[in-house]
């Protein structure tokens, strides 16, 4: 954990860009939206002003990406810098290593919540915005936690199937995030897309967050969605363990590329 934080604070530009990304993508999307239509149309269809919906979406996107990216890219990074043989031969074990990767990132995603959600929510919703922000941040942590098993299983599974191909990861990442529905509410998705996205654990958490922001949330629906996300997260855990072990065995059998 300390190593991640030290790296984060030492590389100031990484820290600044990390905190600025949600604002950047929100501005980007608002500009496209305002160029083709009106915020009133957005509010009528979604139920809330676009700036609020998109900043929450951007926060969910980057808090997910900060964790999922770290997991999916870590094998390539470790292989490139030459630390992979040490990780594989470490007595801690590869599974434990990958399970520990998201922990420091959870805290960073909370910092991102403080800098992204709170200023916008307080301006647009007043003091009640603080409460909404806290709820969104809590659910986002649950969301990312449920995402870890699937992301690890898919990432390491891909590496086992086709070698360390960052291009495949670059395709898989945004595809998962589209299906999760960070920028497009799931309740407006077509039925086939909705069914596919239901298989991705964080999609349920993201929908809960969006319903809270829009004001459509009911306590029972929130509970069901969160339980569903956690159940799916647990259901993917054996896949994560199997993919991690298969990847480790492959490395032990074929060696680490230099």
């Amino acid at each position, binding site marked *: 954990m300390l190593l991640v934080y030290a790296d984060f604070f030492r590389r100031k530009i*990484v820290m600044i860009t990390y905190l600025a990304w949600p604002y950047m993508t929100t501005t980007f999307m608002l500009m*496209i939206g305002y160029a*083709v239509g009106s915020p009133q149309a957005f509010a009528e269809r979604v139920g809330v002003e676009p700036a609020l919906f998109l900043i929450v979406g951007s926060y969910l996107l980057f808090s997910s990406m900060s964790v999922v990216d770290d997991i999916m890219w870590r094998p390539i990074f470790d292989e490139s810098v030459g630390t992979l043989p040490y990780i594989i031969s470490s007595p801690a074990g590869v599974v434990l290593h990958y399970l520990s990767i998201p922990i420091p990132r959870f805290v960073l995603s909370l910092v991102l919540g403080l800098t992204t959600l709170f200023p916008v929510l307080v301006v647009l919703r007043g003091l009640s915005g603080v409460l909404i922000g806290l709820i969104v941040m809590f659910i986002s942590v649950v969301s990312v936690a449920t995402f870890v098993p699937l992301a690890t299983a898919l990432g390491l599974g891909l590496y086992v199937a086709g070698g360390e191909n960052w*291009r495949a990861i670059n395709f898989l990442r945004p595809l998962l995030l589209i299906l999760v529905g960070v920028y497009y509410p799931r309740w407006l998705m077509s039925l086939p897309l909705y069914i596919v996205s239901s298989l991705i654990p964080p999609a349920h958490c993201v929908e809960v967050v969006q319903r809270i922001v829009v004001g459509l949330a009911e306590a029972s629906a929130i509970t069901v969605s969160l339980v569903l996300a956690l159940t799916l997260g647990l259901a993917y855990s054996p896949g994560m363990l199997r993919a991690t072990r298969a990847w480790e065995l492959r490395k032990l059998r074929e060696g680490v590329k230099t």
Partner: protein
Amino acid sequence: MRNLIKSAKAVLVAYFVGELVRSKGLAYGLLSLAVWLSMFIVPASLFIKGETESSLSAGVLIGSAIFLAYSTATWDWAVLLRWLMQLGILEYVIASGSSIFSHYLGTVPVSIAWYSMALAIAYTIVSVFLGPPKVVLVDPVAFVIGVVSLLIVLMAYSFMLGGTLLAAGTAGPIIEFIGWILPIATGGLTPLSIMPKPLQVVAYLTPFSYPAELLRYSLGISNPVLEPSLVVILGATYSTIFLGLSSIYLKHQVRRMLKEGVRSVALF
């Protein structure tokens, strides 16, 4: 000159075979682009009530085209130098006597092919989710000048970024950030006329805004804030000066690197 063309050809073949064919970079790259574009363009449909005017879809298409052009200049041209440093082969490139510009020249044909395909994907996505864009060539001369000055500006920008990479070594997050902020802040994404006044001034102080304004004007999407003839003159002059200055800057950084050695580059 003959040696430069020979080196550029070797770079082209190596890049095409290694990156696009052997590692399936073309297929993965286009798939990834389609997904990223969809992620940002599809939600724009939520802003539309009823039918979209085809000129508005055309505006989004041109904005996407300019954004893609920036991405190409950033990731194909400027980051190429970073990649050479990362792989530890930049020293060998320089020691071989081959000009660093041969790498830029060698990747241009691949970039153009890639850009054309990316544009086709953007057209499809905009057509499906926002409506078919209506692009009409209103002023062919302004269009040609706009395209040429955009190419010059992007080449100059990649020289500048490439030189900065040689000077600073690691700069991955900065590159990624600049690649996004430039088209947003300089009127690449949306017409300057709908941007706030202070941003218009900032945009016109950079060479990036003129080609974008000319392209939109020549394709009948929007009128520039300044007189079109003035935009042509200022755009052509500014982009040429920018290219000259950035070439000098890149050469200076290469000379500096020969004195101080090649910087180490982190993966991210």
